[in-house]
């Protein structure tokens, strides 16, 4: 009975250590992916962000900081930090998409209930 108990604890410990190992490896893999971003990745992400910004602007839905974030992405790409550039560009792209959706969803004027 006692042997079985120790065996159980041992198995649990292995599982735990193994899990942590896997997680660390996965995290290392992710960070190596980030550093593996290329200038082309950054250029493509920035172009996509700028297209999303312009699309939002076409319906008067551009947000305040989107252009600024794209500028920061361009700076990061110039400095060779492509991972940062892609991250910023993706953030700007989401802003552009949300700004567009925000305006399209309000294409027709709907007066609020408190205005009556």
């Amino acid at each position, binding site marked *: 009975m006692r042997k079985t108990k120790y065996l159980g604890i041992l198995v649990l410990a292995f599982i735990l250590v193994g899990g942590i190992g896997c997680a660390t490896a996965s995290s290392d893999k992710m960070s190596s992916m980030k550093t593996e971003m290329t200038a082309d990745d950054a250029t493509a992400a920035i172009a996509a962000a700028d297209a999303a910004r312009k699309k939002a*602007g076409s319906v*008067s*839905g*551009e*947000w*305040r*900081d*989107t*252009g600024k974030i794209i500028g920061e992405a361009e700076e990061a790409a110039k400095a060779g930090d492509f991972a940062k550039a892609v991250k910023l560009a993706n953030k700007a792209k989401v*802003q552009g998409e*949300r700004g567009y959706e*925000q*305006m399209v969803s*309000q294409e027709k*004027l*709907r*007066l*609020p209930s*408190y*205005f*009556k």
Partner: protein
Amino acid sequence: MKKIVLMTTALLMVVGFSNAVMASPEEDRQIFLNFYKERFPNVPQDDYINGVYAIDPVGRENWEAIEEFPPYETAIDAGKSMWDTAFANGKTYSDCFPDGPAIMSKYPHWNKEKGSVITLPLALNACREANGEKPLKYNKGAIANIVSYIAYESRDQVTNVVIPKDDPRALEAYEMGKKFYFTKRGQLNFSCANCHLQNVGMVLRTEILGPAVGQTTHWPVYRSKWGEMGTLHRRFKGCNEQVRAKAFKPHGEEYRNLEYFLTYQSNNLPLNGPGARK
């Protein structure tokens, strides 16, 4: 029977909604007035020309103390000097505005020929350009000075925005301004109405949100935050940026229509610009 009830309800909702959307400008103005009357029953209607100080007694005390030595006086003087000084071709602003300088209540107005809303700063720049002068920048500086002088000379005139019935584009411009006012924008997803109607009187950080009625009567203003004079469209820009939306060009179509709609809501209220604000 159930179907009939459902159809009738749906029809009533559609009719109700259409009516709300298609309310006339005058009906809109009454809705605004009734809303504030219900929210602030002790505020006399004429007091709305004092903006947020109509509903903020502590802020009002400070403001009244500031008004003893108005920080906008130098702007009025500078504006008078501009009005009196001839352009390079020998003409003056008076040649463009023979009824001037007390012309504030004529703006904004609908211009049928141009098919657009004309604001006072836009008209002033058109005058300058017609006389070979460079147009002024719209947010602050010289434009705020000359509009301050005109506003001062126009004190006690009454806001009188007209939406001519002989040109449907005028009502369209008003409706576009109304749509702008109720459209949520920016990363914070706020409309003008969210602050100045729905949450009027509430505190946002340290500031009390002011009512829309009376909001256009006292411009330009010396704003302590700016440390200088600024125009109404500068404030529009600031509001849009505060909700993290990209601002529009001053006196571009969006803000012109917004001014048309917003100023209409202050019809019959006296003009009391220029003003001072925190």
